[in-house]
């Protein structure tokens, strides 16, 4: 067994929380620059220019990219030969969120109870997903998820007969209904298969896929291209006043499912696509 002190996880989460909220990934900034170069609507061009300027200001440290610094969603892959020592995982993650959000001047956006709605003040607790995998490493992804796009996300239990076209139609309908509220241009995570509860997790995991990586399954890569084309045909555009680029990218993650089921989940991600990752 390889011992890993949970204090290292606290430190990593704190650093990722702060970094991801101030600095957009370089490759992702290039996506926005490409969208600006190909945009033919003056309104959408103006919005994209503002977003690029916003990214420069945030990286300079004046303020986070967006005031919605998100729910702290943390994904782990923990090697089976790792033994976490000196504390429990959930508390270590929350300590990291507390340190990163308070120290980084990020917003506390969590209420302790969905009906009583009192702010917890430090953005805890995090939403934590853990996969046990072979090996002796701990891999962490930090995804601060804003509510504007999260609120417009959806899932459905389609019929197997609805098939490929049914999936495309469902994604397009979700994006059309979201409109400007989800802060386009979007990254769209699509979860296919699994069960009622599992498909949305696949959709969220799809958002973690590194930029410029193709789906290894050719039929899913083709589906991603077709969804992207159909979504951009909507003409919603950056900011929602009309334009070419409603979505920058579509990522599909699939899983086996029941013979009678075709679960689909669409997790919309706003243009402030913030993901940080580290391996311990």
């Amino acid at each position, binding site marked *: 067994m390889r011992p890993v002190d949970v204090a290292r996880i606290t430190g990593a989460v704190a650093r990722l929380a702060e970094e991801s909220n101030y600095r957009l990934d370089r490759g992702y900034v290039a996506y926005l620059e490409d969208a600006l170069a190909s945009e033919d*609507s*003056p*309104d959408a*061009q*103006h*919005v994209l220019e*503002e*977003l690029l*300027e*916003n990214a420069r*200001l*945030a990286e300079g*440290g*004046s*303020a*986070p*990219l*967006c*005031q*919605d*610094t998100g729910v702290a969603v943390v994904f782990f892959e923990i090697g089976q030969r790792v033994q976490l020592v000196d504390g429990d995982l959930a508390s270590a993650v929350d300590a990291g969120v507390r340190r990163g959000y308070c120290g980084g*001047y*990020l*917003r*506390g*956006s969590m209420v302790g109870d969905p009906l009583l*709605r009192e*702010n917890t*003040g430090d953005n805890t607790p995090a939403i934590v997903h853990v996969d046990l995998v072979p090996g002796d490493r701990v891999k962490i992804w930090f995804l601060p998820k*804003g*509510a*504007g796009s999260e*609120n417009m996300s959806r899932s459905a239990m389609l019929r197997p007969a609805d098939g490929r076209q049914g999936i495309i139609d469902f994604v397009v309908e979700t994006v059309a209904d979201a*409109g*400007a*509220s*989800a*802060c386009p241009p979007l990254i769209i995570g699509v979860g296919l298969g699994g069960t009622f509860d599992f498909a949305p997790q696949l959709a969220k995991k799809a958002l973690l896929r590194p930029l410029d990586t193709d789906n290894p399954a050719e039929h899913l890569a083709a589906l991603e291209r077709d969804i992207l084309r159909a979504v951009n045909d*909507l*003409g*919603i*555009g950056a*900011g*929602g*006043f*009309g*334009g070419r680029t409603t979505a920058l990218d579509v990522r599909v993650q699939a899983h086996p499912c029941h013979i009678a089921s075709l679960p689909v989940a669409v997790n919309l991600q*706003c*243009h*402030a696509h913030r993901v940080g990752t580290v391996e311990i």
Partner: protein
Amino acid sequence: MSACGGARIRRIETPLGGEVARELRAGERVEIFGDIYAARDAAHARLVAGLEAGEKPPIDLRGCILYYVGPTPPRPGRVIGSAGPTTASRMDPYVVPLLARGVTGMIGKGPRSPEVLEALVCHGAVYLAATGGAGALLADRIRAAEVIAWPELGPEALRRLRVEGFPAVVAADSRGSDLYALGPKRYRQERQSREVGR
């Protein structure tokens, strides 16, 4: 109609009088100068509950522009943190009583309900859109920030913000025009006519 890159930007000052509010047209780009008030879900619930109970609101609502924002805490030496607009439709249920008490403008992002669009016509008010997710950029146009009521709400407290050149687009005007509906429709039509012409 379109807020074209080269179009003149209209300067508006607060309090926003009814006459000026009525002149504004969907698609027009504006820059705001003066005091605006930050209020989102929780502050709206309290404002409207207070009005219904017959209490005096903590701010003068006449000519008031409400900004749907819950900022991040300011870094040392700054007046405010990131301060972009939140989704406006969540405030839809509160709009009618606030317009009835004199609010003439709201700033947010995303489309409004048919009831809100109708209320804008009825009261001669406007809905302005700022760019969602441009919180660092918009914070740069805020010169002062002060909590006016309900500090216990943290980021949702009611705040007075002094703005200079705060950029926004008229998204819905007092004549019933809605840029969120018209803009994408017009873009699709223009694209189609380009393709036919090719």
